[in-house]
């Protein structure tokens, strides 16, 4: 990329990777989200923390465009998701809570399929696949069928896949569900490193406090509304508590998350 390209990147990076503004959503009569607003910047791991049923997955479905967002607006890298859907989705990498790989295809075939959906040419795709698998330390297993991998490795393949098209925003919906402790901490550390590298903005939803690291930005959600957002220190200071668990209890006025 030439000088013009760099200038473009700078301009692009000045807009937040994700802006959610005044979003409300209901399933029939039941309100799942009520005027939710926040934004996500590059350079931090942004943790969307809330108990089960708080509206995390609904929010996730809205940001990925699986649900339409009738009230409020969502912008990904400055592109309105509703009016400029394709451009917005092109800047988004997603890891769903459910596993979404084809078990009978090899790791490489799974990633090639994804690359094709994002319009990448064969050669470019192949280079990116090697680079992302290398980063996840699974390059040497790329010809194996996904069925042969354990849960932790499958998740790594999904993270590699989400990064393949160099999105500005990486979304992960409770990505450690069902993983053993070593795979869990390895994925938590890996994603934090990724965010710290400054290449990408990360939004990670979870109900597990031990997945939070000191530099993270927190967004605390409960019963469909945002209760607090900011750095860990700021939230603890505001609630006059000395741990996230205590702050969380104060904010939600019930037992802290697990």
């Amino acid at each position, binding site marked *: 990329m030439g000088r013009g390209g760099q200038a473009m990147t700078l301009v692009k990076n000045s807009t937040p990777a994700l802006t959610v503004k005044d979003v409300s959503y209901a399933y029939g009569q039941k309100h799942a989200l009520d005027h939710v607003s926040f934004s996500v910047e590059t350079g931090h791991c942004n943790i969307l923390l809330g108990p089960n049923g708080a509206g995390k997955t609904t929010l996730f479905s809205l940001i990925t465009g699986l649900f339409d967002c009738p009230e409020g607006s969502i912008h990904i890298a400055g592109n309105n998701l509703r009016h400029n859907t394709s451009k917005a*989705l092109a800047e988004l990498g997603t890891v769903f809570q459910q596993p*979404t790989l084809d078990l009978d295809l090899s790791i490489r075939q799974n990633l090639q*399929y994804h690359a094709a959906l*994002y*319009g990448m040419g064969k050669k470019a795709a192949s280079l990116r696949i090697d680079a992302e698998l290398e980063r996840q330390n699974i390059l040497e297993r790329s010809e194996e069928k996904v069925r042969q991998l354990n849960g932790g490795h499958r998740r790594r393949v999904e993270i590699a896949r989400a990064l393949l098209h160099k999105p500005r925003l990486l979304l992960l919906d409770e990505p450690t569900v069902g993983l053993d402790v070593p795979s869990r901490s390895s994925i938590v550390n890996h994603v934090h490193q990724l965010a710290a590298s400054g290449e990408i903005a990360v939004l990670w939803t979870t109900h597990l406090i031990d997945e939070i690291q000191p530099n993270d930005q927190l967004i605390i959600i409960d019963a469909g509304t945002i209760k607090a957002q900011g750095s860990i220190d700021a939230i603890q200071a505001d609630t006059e508590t000395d741990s996230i668990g205590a702050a969380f209890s104060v904010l939600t006025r019930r037992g802290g998350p697990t």
Partner: protein
Amino acid sequence: MSLSHYYRAMIGIFGRELLRFVHQRERFVSALVRPLMWLFIFAAGFRSTLGVAIIPPYETYILYEVYITPGLVGMVQLFNGMQSSLSMVYDREMGSMKTLLVSPLPRWYLLTSKLLAGVLVSVVQAYVFLLIAYFYGIEPPLLGYLTVLPALILSGLMLGSLGLLLSSFVKQLENFAGVMNFVIFPMFFLSTALYPLWKIQESSKLLYRISTLNPFTHAVELIRFALYNRFDLTSCFYTFCALALFLSLAIIGYNPRRGMMQRKGGA
């Protein structure tokens, strides 16, 4: 999004469908065994009981096996259409439908590509069946193998979009047995696949009327005429209308503004 993006995505979706098809050899074998049983066993048993008069596109008296071959080609495509919708329900339960739907192309394009990929598989199956039937003595004119191709594509699209439509309504894999009973069997038996419509008319006027409205009847007639180098405008028109109807309903069903992802997104 550039044209090359559209092209690459379609090739990618085709490639995935073909790879999955290759990996599911049982699916391919059972898709072939089913019509072959009808041809080798059922048709042999019925040959003597059912005399078929001379009706277009045939120019002479024909054996019953010859009569039902186009119907069985239709059956291959009918099952394939339902099977690919089954795989879409499966994809949705497994989440791989989500990864397709969040990719940066218009949803109608992604669904149509998936539909075309299923048609590609069903056309391959239909030709393999016709080849085996050829060695069994069912020999349509050689040119017919070429002229039947557009008919197979159109009927495959129509049946595939019916499957797509069903997949937007069926919530879970378990409900799919119902599709078998309430869609595949009535469509197959109330059509010209196994007997000409005048035979049904002799027994029941009502069933006859239903059969003439059945889009599968028209798909079978389209294939039958095309296989004998003839073009049947009426059945082509009906098949096309059914395709347009099913496909637009299916695209509405998958539309995030009012469709099934929303209604079933309670989780």
